[in-house]
């Protein structure tokens, strides 16, 4: 097992910069996800690590070894693809054996090892079936066993669950994590599904436009997004553009209403900021405004199973709030409600170009 280091990794395709200088250290045995929308560079990064593509500049290290120029078949990196990667002409067990066969391991040894791995992924009974006789989820299990058979130094998974049903997806991702923990293998997992990334990773790297926006534990990514992009992409977030009104008491001004936000303390007066509030922290009541409150009208209700999601038009923006089903039942569409959230729960980000506006406001203040 070995750690991975990416050193200012860049990849350009003509004029398009797919990967714009990525630096990343992954510890041995760590499970790291690359999360981002399509075109963010996550798959490019994975392909550079696997060796299917060469970087325009930068280096890839596995352990202490620089593998930037090493051919993909000499890297000892296991890879699981999105779909259709099993060799159609071979049974499951022969698929799993393939890497060992290429390494000229004896017939008996490799068969034993392949069967062990199929057992590990719960497919001991399907060893003699061909890929077209297996379901999508089973195919991906075989693909995982096949990647693990060569005892790789690093395991790469390229959206391995994206072609599967929701239920199989959840079940299989838990299993991938279980196997990964058990084998202690360093793993990089590429996905565009934030729930998937947050649920199985040690750390998540959120990518956008070829750069890492933020890297951190799932709790950090979810609870303290570092940029507006991360806030937008990970989970659902209320994003409220407002102005710091009273840095001493932690208050911002949102369309004439004063909201208490602890994070606004110590900011510059007049600074344009983005207040981030998770829907589950927003409280909705069918009454007039109270402390830290806004009034609005319920626009829609969506039943999501464990919670009911309300959209409330308050000021120019629509707020999203997740409530228990019973509480939501008391707030039908059209009801006048008040919204509030705990001042400690909201996060604050400086808006792009907000600094200049802040300075202007400060100048205006000093004139007065």
């Amino acid at each position, binding site marked *: 097992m070995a750690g991975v280091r990416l050193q200012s990794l860049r990849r350009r395709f003509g004029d398009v910069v797919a990967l714009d200088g990525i630096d990343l250290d992954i510890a041995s045995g760590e499970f790291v996800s690359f999360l981002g929308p399509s075109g963010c560079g996550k798959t490019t990064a994975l392909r550079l690590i696997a060796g299917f593509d060469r970087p325009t500049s930068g280096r890839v290290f596995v352990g202490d070894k620089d593998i930037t120029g090493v051919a993909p078949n000499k890297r000892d990196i296991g*890879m699981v693809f999105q779909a259709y990667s099993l060799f159609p002409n071979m049974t499951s067990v022969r698929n799993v054996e393939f890497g060992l066969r290429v390494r000229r391991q004896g017939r008996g040894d490799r068969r034993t090892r392949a069967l062990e791995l199929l057992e590990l992924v719960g497919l001991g009974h399907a060893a003699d079936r061909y890929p077209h006789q297996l379901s999508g989820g089973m195919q991906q299990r075989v693909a995982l066993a096949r990647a693990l058979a060569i005892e790789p130094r690093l395991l790469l998974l390229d959206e391995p669950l994206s072609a599967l049903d929701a239920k199989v997806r959840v079940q299989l991702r838990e299993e991938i994590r279980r196997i990964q923990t058990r084998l202690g293998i360093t793993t990089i997992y590429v996905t565009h599904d934030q729930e998937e990334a947050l649920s199985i990773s040690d750390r998540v790297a959120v990518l956008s436009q070829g750069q890492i926006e933020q890297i951190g534990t799932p709790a950090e990514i979810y609870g303290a997004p570092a940029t507006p992009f991360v806030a937008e992409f990970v989970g659902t977030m209320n994003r409220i553009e407002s102005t710091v009104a009273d840095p001493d008491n932690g208050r911002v001004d949102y369309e004439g209403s004063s909201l208490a936000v602890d994070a606004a303390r110590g900011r510059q007066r007049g600074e344009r900021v983005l207040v981030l509030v998770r829907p589950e922290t927003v409280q909705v009541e069918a009454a007039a405004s109270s402390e830290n409150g806004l009034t609005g009208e319920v626009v829609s209700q969506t039943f999501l199973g464990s919670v009911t999601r309300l959209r409330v038009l308050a000021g120019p923006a629509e707020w999203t709030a997740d409530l228990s089903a019973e509480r939501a039942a008391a707030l039908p569409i059209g009801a006048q409600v008040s919204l509030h959230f705990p001042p400690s729960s909201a996060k604050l980000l400086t808006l792009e170009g907000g600094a200049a506006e802040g300075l202007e406001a400060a100048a205006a203040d000093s004139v007065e």
Partner: protein
Amino acid sequence: MTPRRFIAPSAVLWLLLGAAYFLIPLIATLIFSLRSNQTGTCCTLENYGTIIHDPQFLKTIKTSFILSLETIFLTLVLLVPTVYWVHLKLPRLRSVIGFMALVPFVIPPIILVVGLLDVYKGTPTWFYAEPYGFLVAAYVILAFPYMYFSLDTGFRSIDVHTLTEASQSLGAHWTTTLVRVILPNIKSAALAGSFLTLAIVMGEFTIASLAVFDTFPIYIQYINQNKAYPAASVTLLAFAITWAAMVALLAAGRGRAPAAQGAR
């Protein structure tokens, strides 16, 4: 229980018409071939005897058969890696090659053979004066479109990229990938291309005649001009032999591989 398939009467009619179109000439040829070459009366197998005991028959059919195998072998060796590479790395070249593959159809054989004779003038006699050299060079060109389009379809039906990358990540060199992973999955396409090539080479007359080589079609033509009744029997024999060769190829190609159907 699945309901019994009902075949519409009109379908039966068309089927019979189609069958008649193919079978009547064959049956007529068969009856004709059974007449005695001396008396013109039915029914004797002596024409078949004459042909089979004619040393020229065995010699030319052997020549044509070896030519087919050589052509099949060469086109496969040339085209399988090429089409693989084009699908993997140069997909934009597909349309260019597709256009090139049409060239043998639009160039008349007479131009092709005159041009080739000129191009290969001065090459060693073992190549220039032998069917296994010069003719094969010409037949590879003729077989190119048939083999190319078969292989192209075959490669399109598999995920060349993913399979190649999966194989590479497991440590396989690209030649191993080609032999162990890609070839078994395009086998039916390669077989189809090989059948077409076999049929073309076994029946090719123009180039062989113009370049003055004794191949099987030349022999059939010779018998046709000289012996009316044996000509019919040689035609039927050619038909049977070509079919037998195809069945043999099919059997050789199938081996112990599983049916490729639905293998995606």
